[in-house]
């Protein structure tokens, strides 16, 4: 393994000043579950490693004025155990629950999952369906952007070397909304996602879908909103039949995204089951018939 200097700042200010000093060759680690492996395998080199996990101020979940604010250093376990996330933001809860293993979830953070921009990240897919915003800070100041703008292509983000992702926030889902995330993998633990599907639906008082945000992950090179599915759903009653009516659309979308990939045959069929499971969970959340038990 190669050598580096190690810094473990206790405050955000200290971390930001370290980043601006070492920005030519620096790696930030939080849980370290992705980056430490890259450092060990020399896939990634840096002269300075800044471990931000001791900055206690960046580990929180709070709901203020209808906005859910999550500190970047909240671990997957923190989010899984947070009663608000579990009961009111089911898509994010499931995305966290399906990450790696208990050991990985105890270390890994939501900020790291978002900033690392892996093709196979679970939480970015859920966060895009929640239309989340990320907060980036540097010694020079602060900027915010939608998470969709934060991703600028496969594995790339807008994050500068001297910046830290400090917070992720999104509007708290209202009582008329339901969210769900389904991960398809080869087994439950320690698998890379094959397909991730995140959905947020809002209904009006007549059970008509008034808003739909649908995101598919791990198929294209980064999670994508599916406007054709969203347009199909808006204005239709929220029923099992409506959902069944778009299953073939999912298949076609997946085929169009990766027509030449070896996995296309499997993914275009299995996405129907993934959609089914996701929408069943939405029906259940709305206490409508056809939902899972």
């Amino acid at each position, binding site marked *: 393994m190669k*050598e580096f200097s*190690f810094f473990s700042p206790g405050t955000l200010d200290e971390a930001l000043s370290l980043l601006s000093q070492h920005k030519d060759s620096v790696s930030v680690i939080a849980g*370290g579950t992705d980056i*430490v*492996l890259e450092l060990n395998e020399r896939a990634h080199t840096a002269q300075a490693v800044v471990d931000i996990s*001791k900055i206690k101020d960046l580990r929180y979940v709070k709901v203020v004025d209808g906005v859910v604010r999550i500190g970047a250093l909240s671990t997957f376990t923190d989010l899984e155990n947070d009663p608000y996330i579990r009961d009111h933001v089911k898509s994010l809860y499931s995305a966290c629950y399906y990450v790696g293993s*208990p*050991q*990985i979830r105890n270390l890994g953070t939501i900020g790291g999952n978002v900033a690392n921009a892996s093709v196979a990240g679970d939480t970015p897919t859920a966060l895009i369906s929640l239309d989340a915003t990320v907060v980036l800070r540097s010694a020079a100041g602060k900027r915010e952007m939608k998470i969709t703008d934060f991703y600028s292509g496969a594995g790339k983000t807008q994050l500068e070397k001297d910046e830290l992702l400090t917070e992720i926030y999104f509007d708290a889902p209202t009582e008329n909304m339901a969210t769900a995330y389904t991960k398809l993998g080869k087994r439950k633990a320690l698998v890379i996602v094959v397909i991730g599907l995140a959905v947020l639906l809002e209904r009006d008082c007549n059970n008509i879908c008034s808003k739909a945000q649908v995101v598919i992950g791990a198929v294209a090179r980064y999670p994508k909103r599916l406007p054709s599915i969203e347009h199909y759903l808006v204005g239709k009653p929220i029923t099992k039949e409506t959902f069944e009516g778009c299953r073939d659309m999912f298949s076609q979308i997946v085929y169009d995204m990766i027509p030449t990939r070896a996995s296309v045959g499997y993914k275009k069929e299995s996405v129907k089951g993934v959609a089914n499971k996701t929408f069943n969970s939405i029906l259940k959340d709305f206490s409508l018939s056809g939902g899972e038990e």
Partner: protein
Amino acid sequence: MDLMKLSFMLNGEATEIMVDPSDMLVDILRERLLLTGTKKGCGKGECGACTVIMDGAAVNSCMIPAMKAMGTTVQTIEGIGSPNQLHPLQESFMDEGAIQCGFCTPGMIMSAKALLDSTPHPDGAQIKEAIAGNICRCTGYVKIEKAILSASEKLKG
């Protein structure tokens, strides 16, 4: 690269050691502190053999740069019982025949201990979830689950 001083509580004792910051915790435990009960399997957080308990949570010590342990409380398999007084989990693993080659056992027991520390009376699903990050290639999970259940009953008293 300059060595750094790591101070942490290891199995109940204040421990100080000079480390290279690019060393992983598992290597410090095994090679420097000679606590070889913790095993190193895949080195990538996928097998769970290196599981230790850090500040109350089960973690993979193979993906923790040693200096990340600064100021924490770490427990390894050596710290939960002694040859004369085994931890109930250690007893149950023997009684239930939950050990074959033994390589995964310390990690399994540490994951199980983290579970029992936070959830003294787990159900089957919680037990399976707690050891989901630990791989046994002799494939004896049923006996391991039984052993954890029986240890939880012993702890109930």
